[in-house]
């Protein structure tokens, strides 16, 4: 028998890099089909192709025996596909009912006035069918994340979608809300809808899915009925063969404790977070998207405040009210969003480098910026990291990503810092620059600095770090020493399975 949906040889490239390579598999009607893979495996790209956001460079999609050309979002909707993205497509200033019927407004035939009552009643019916307790006349901006999710599902149903794609629907939900979503998904299956479910979380997949397809690095790995799989098997499929973690990197970790964190807690974001950082150590922080690790580190740095818990710097209790405080105590921070939170686009390479240090010199020099000292500081960092630029007054926007990143590192290194918190220090830079950053981290560790580095790419984490902690749902679910490093283990912790 022919399958309901046949995906054949789908190829997608971005600027010459394969995001998807020759993907083929079938999806059965009325099933919940989970699509799994690490960050960057190509899951979202595939879903965006089905949703008409991207166009495949090659391959075909056949639905109910008919080959479909999906060139845009409307084509996708015409095929009965509805996609619920991680960033919802709801308009917060409109009501629930208005959002559900946004593209299909019930109108009186005469004059075309909107039939508000009918719309609300229809919406109510839909919501009741889904057993969701949401007022159709409530404004979307007042809903919780999980309620918004349900509204998205109702919207899909209102359009008579037969195929509903959910892209990491549980990333921002708590356990109870996940349970509710599971109920709704089961109900939809009973109604004969086909559901494509993308998730990192193993538990949900085992609770809901009938079939699992695993992608890795943009390639198809396998499709199996859930009954033939267990957690270890899925992780093995996702990770592929073991990577070589025996690369000899000298460890400079000492016994001296720099930073201690005890029971850090912020309502609904993270809880019971405790860890230690030693001088000369590179501590890797792993976890999946939305696991709360960036938030914990930003809170320690004083970007926002935590509810309770203690932070000790070299044995003394500290609590930073602002980044200024943290900097004064020798802690620095590298953002993972270089463009929006890192560079000062209109300003020169020199000014971008000395942004922090020039102010700490303020006390000595008064209010005056000494151009000589600025130039010297830039030179110091240029020599240290071989930053490439045409001249010190050149705008930083002209530099490559790697060089911009070095400037941002230099901005923090000009002061005598003890602890360096880095979010994705190698994001968006080329391979060569990555290697330079790795050896730079080593160099800093050797000099006795304590480094906390968030890496999404586990290969990098394993390569660079001395020790790692893993987050899931705002909690530390595991810790590994260098000897224990292993992708499967990290992934198991990240998926929330304590061992």
């Amino acid at each position, binding site marked *: 028998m022919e399958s309901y949906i046949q995906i054949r040889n789908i190829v997608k490239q971005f600027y010459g890099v394969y995001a998807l390579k020759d993907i083929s598999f079938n999806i059965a009607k009325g099933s919940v089909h989970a699509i799994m893979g690490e960050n960057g495996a190509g899951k979202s790209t595939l879903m965006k192709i089905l949703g008409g956001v991207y166009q495949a460079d090659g391959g075909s999609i056949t639905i109910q025996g008919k080959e479909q050309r999906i060139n845009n979002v409307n084509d996708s909707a015409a095929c009965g596909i509805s996609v619920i993205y991680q960033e919802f497509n709801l308009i917060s200033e409109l009501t629930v009912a208005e959002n559900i019927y946004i593209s299909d407004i019930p109108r009186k035939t005469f004059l075309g006035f909107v039939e508000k009552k009918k719309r609300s009643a229809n919406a109510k019916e839909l919501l009741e069918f889904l057993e969701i307790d949401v007022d159709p006349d409530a404004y979307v901006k007042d809903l919780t994340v999980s309620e918004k999710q349900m509204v998205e599902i109702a919207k899909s149903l209102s359009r008579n979608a037969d195929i509903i794609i959910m892209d990491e629907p549980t990333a921002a939900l708590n356990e109870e809300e996940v349970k509710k979503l599971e109920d709704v998904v089961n109900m939809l299956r009973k109604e004969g809808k086909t559901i494509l479910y993308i998730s990192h979380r193993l538990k949900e997949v085992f609770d809901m899915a009938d079939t699992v397809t695993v992608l890795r690095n943009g390639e198809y790995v396998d499709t199996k009925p859930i009954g033939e799989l267990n957690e270890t098997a899925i992780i093995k499929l996702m990770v592929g063969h073991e990577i070589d973690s025996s690369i000899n990197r000298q460890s400079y970790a000492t016994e001296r404790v720099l930073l201690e964190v005890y029971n850090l807690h912020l309502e609904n974001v993270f809880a019971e977070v405790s860890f230690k950082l030693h001088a000369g150590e590179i501590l890797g922080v792993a976890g999946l998207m939305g696991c709360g690790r960036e938030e914990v580190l930003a809170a320690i*740095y004083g*970007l926002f405040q935590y509810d309770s818990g203690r932070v000790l710097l070299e044995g003394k209790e500290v609590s930073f009210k*602002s*980044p*200024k405080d*943290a*900097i*004064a105590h020798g802690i620095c*921070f590298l*953002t993972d969003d*270089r*463009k*929006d*939170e*890192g*560079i*000062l*686009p*209109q*300003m020169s390479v020199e*000014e971008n480098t000395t*942004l*922090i240090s*020039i*102010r700490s010199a*303020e006390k000595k020099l008064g*209010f*005056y*910026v000494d*151009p000589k000292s600025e130039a010297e500081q830039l030179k110091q960092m240029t020599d240290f990291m071989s930053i490439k630029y045409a001249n010190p007054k050149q*705008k930083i*926007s*002209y*530099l*490559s*990503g790697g060089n*911009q990143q070095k400037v941002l590192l230099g*901005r923090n290194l000009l002061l005598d810092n003890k602890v360096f918190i880095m979010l994705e220090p190698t994001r*968006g830079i080329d391979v060569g620059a990555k290697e330079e950053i790795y050896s730079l981290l080593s160099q800093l560790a050797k000099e006795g600095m304590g480094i906390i580095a968030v890496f999404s790419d586990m290969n990098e984490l394993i390569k660079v770090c001395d020790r790692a902690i893993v987050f899931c749902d705002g909690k530390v679910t595991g810790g590994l020493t260098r000897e224990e490093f292993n992708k499967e283990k990290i992934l198991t912790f990240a998926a929330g399975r304590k061992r």
Partner: protein
Amino acid sequence: MKKFILKHSDNLSLGAVIIMLFIGFSIMQPNMMTAFNIKNILVQVSLTAIAAAGMTFAYTAGVFDMSIGSILALVSVVVAKTATTYGFFIALAAAVVIAVMVGVVNGLIVTKLGIQAFAATLVTMILIRGIAVLIANGADIPLYSMEGIKFISSGTIAGIPFPIILTVLVYIFSYILYYTTVFGMKLRSVGSNADASKISGIKTNRMVIAAFVLTAVTAVLSSLIKTAQVMFGKSTIGEDFALDVMTTVILGGTLVTGGKGNLTGTLIASILIAVIKNGLNINNVNSYYQQLIIGIILIFALIVNGIKTMKNERQIRREG
């Protein structure tokens, strides 16, 4: 030399436009070229140029101040009221205190309440004008008894009109503040990227408030010149002033999106606008047309500014 021209192409092209306009107007009306008229133009320039220096700081920090014209009126009224009883210097001190307060209020509304600068200063513009009218009791406050005040607008030192000296001083101070101090660097960095500045330990709110205060304080000086010109404390002065000043700053090449001010450009642009206004006046062009022409210049300036901003963004996107 080529490098210099390239680097300063914006300012040089504005300067070239001034010279061409000046020659054009002079041919049409020879009275343009007289020493008297040139002095007239320069005094006219000082009025906007001084406040525009402050506004350049506001734009650099990523905000702007629509209430500046109302500050002009409030200061004028307060100075007139206090000067006649307490003397000029007490009046000046009162004016500065009021300006700082207004700046702080503007800044707090924008930073703490998170209201956009446009809406926030639109509201304070109306409020402050209201306060000025109240204090003046709806009438002009004469300053006949204070002949000395006249010096601010028409006095000379070594033959140079005092407003021009004042303008030069304000610009020297502004240049130092903008280019050579930590304050200037922080201000630019906040306007360039507020999030990055915050992460780098800059108190971004304080910088925005400071920018509003600077703008209000420069408005005090402009107000004094205007008040001395008419020798009245008037609650009606400066009604189109905010528009004039903002036109000047944008025309001068300061980025409307923040992070990059151009003080030289602001100064040249205020000369340009004064030359246009004076040239039209001296050629007996109806004042209604003057508004129209200033409006057209503003559109032109905004387009050029928009192109520059777009270029900037594209560059960031490409490289980032």
